[in-house]
């Protein structure tokens, strides 16, 4: 078992929420918690390769999903990951009614603010889960 918490976004292609999930996750693993967290390529997990499964099986995960299909959470669980937190990006948008976050291609300044806010919340969870060991 590795010592990092796996932060896994859906990276959904169809809506801005997928991009927000992706950018939030990258901010956590690259900037906010580079020592305590890492990500696993979700597409690799989806292949079902034994090597991909090994990366996630028995690992604590935080998943970020952009739509109710909850692809990241479902695929992480199917591969044997321990999903400690399932973040629904759309829930964060409820606190920001009327914002124009951008598209699935590009975030606006408002979109970046929400992605950063979600990243901050996940970073707290990563630190908590890391302390729990």
């Amino acid at each position, binding site marked *: 078992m590795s010592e990092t918490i796996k932060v*896994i*976004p*859906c*990276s*959904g*292609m*169809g*809506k*801005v929420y*997928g*991009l927000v999930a*992706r*950018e939030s*996750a*990258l*901010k956590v693993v*690259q900037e906010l918690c580079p020592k305590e967290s890492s*990500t*696993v*390529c*979700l*597409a*690799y*997990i*989806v*292949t*079902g390769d034994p090597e991909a499964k090994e990366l996630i099986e028995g690992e604590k995960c935080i998943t970020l999903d952009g*739509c109710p*299909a*909850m*692809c*990241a959470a*479902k*695929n992480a669980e*199917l591969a044997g990951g321990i999903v400690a937190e399932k973040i629904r990006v759309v829930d964060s948008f409820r606190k920001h009614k009327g914002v124009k976050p951008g*598209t*699935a*291609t*590009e*975030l606006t300044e408002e979109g*970046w603010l929400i992605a950063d806010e979600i990243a901050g919340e996940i970073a707290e969870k990563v630190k908590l889960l890391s302390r729990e060991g």
Partner: protein
Amino acid sequence: MSINMVKIGVVSCSGEDCLGGTISRLATRKMLDEVRPNATVTICLPLFLAGGVEERGFAEQFPTISVDGCSKACAKRATEKYSGKVSAAIDVSDLIGKEVAEAGALSTRNLTDEHKAMVEKLASEITTKFDEVLRVAQRDQVAKGLAMVGGRSSGGCGCGCGPK
């Protein structure tokens, strides 16, 4: 006589672990947004497992091009495992080099002109394959009835969540 709009599926890995994943995602979005907006559809790769029968029918419903960010070819292999054979496959590392493609993941916040040039190059390659696949699909449609490319709707996600 029925009129069928021919649409082509472009499925990217959108990998979170390397630069190639970001480039594959952005080039696929470019197809949807700019290059062939009326004839391109996509689907989130993880939906093949998380979704249902409808999602798994994607590659049977649409001739599909897989776009992979690295040589693991997850988009191609997962599409063929869960949905159907792809009509064409592109590996970003063949275009920008394995070492570059497998460099660290890139946030769109940090896109440089060099990265944008990679996206352009990949989108151009996808377009070439796209037009080949489209011609074949149109020929098949013509054999059945009358084919028409594009239409009012903009390119969207195959999961039915609607455009952007």
